[in-house]
């Protein structure tokens, strides 16, 4: 059982380019989340999805979009990357509201 996989592991991106970070879970969890981790700021929620077909905004949603076409996949898209989006991005999932979240290995993104 892989749990949560994320791709790519790392990426260097030119400003203005479009980028999609992939996240797949094999635990059949209803809820999925995207966080960014920045030094001194901890983890901040970007977007979430409580179930397939629904999404919601977190603390820092601007510049990002998500979709949840099925239970397993939750891609995060940067429509036009900016340097302030340089960060480590973690995808997570949970069985339901209030349950512990399981995290993927992360994607290190650098926007130049």
């Amino acid at each position, binding site marked *: 059982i892989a749990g949560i996989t994320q791709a790519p592991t790392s990426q260097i991106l030119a400003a203005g380019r479009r980028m999609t970070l992939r996240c797949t879970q094999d635990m059949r969890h209803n*809820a999925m*989340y995207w*966080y960014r981790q920045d030094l*001194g*700021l*901890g*983890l*901040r*929620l970007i977007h*979430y999805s*409580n179930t397939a077909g629904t999404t*919601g905004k*977190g603390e820092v949603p601007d510049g990002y979009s998500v979709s949840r076409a099925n239970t397993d996949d939750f891609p995060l898209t940067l429509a036009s990357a900016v340097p302030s989006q340089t960060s480590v991005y*973690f995808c*997570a999932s*949970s069985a*339901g*509201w*209030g*349950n*512990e*979240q*399981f*995290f*993927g*290995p*992360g994607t290190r993104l650098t926007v130049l």
Partner: protein
Amino acid sequence: AQSVSQHNHHVILSEAASLELGCNYSYGGTVNLFWYVQYPGQHLQLLLKYFSGDPLVKGIKGFEAEFIKSKFSFNLRKPSVQWSDTAEYFCAVNAYAGNTGKLIFGQGTTLQVKP
């Protein structure tokens, strides 16, 4: 707005020293509480969690935490740290009312254990 505060940003200890990391949250209702650990270069892993019942919870690797409702605190403890405990530790809170399952994380505490 709900918030989580971790008072110690960077802690340096020698092996066998005792550890206590503070965590306070701002929410008056029912909460679920978590401590996660992130070892260098790895993703977050759950150390322990509190949902209800005994306010003293035990987690993996000898860690424990005590929920004190009156103080809105959930401090993490370990009697004797090891070099392998060097990591970043995050406290997180999930509040019930009007919440959609989001965790609110503290800023994190970096623990460095010297051999």
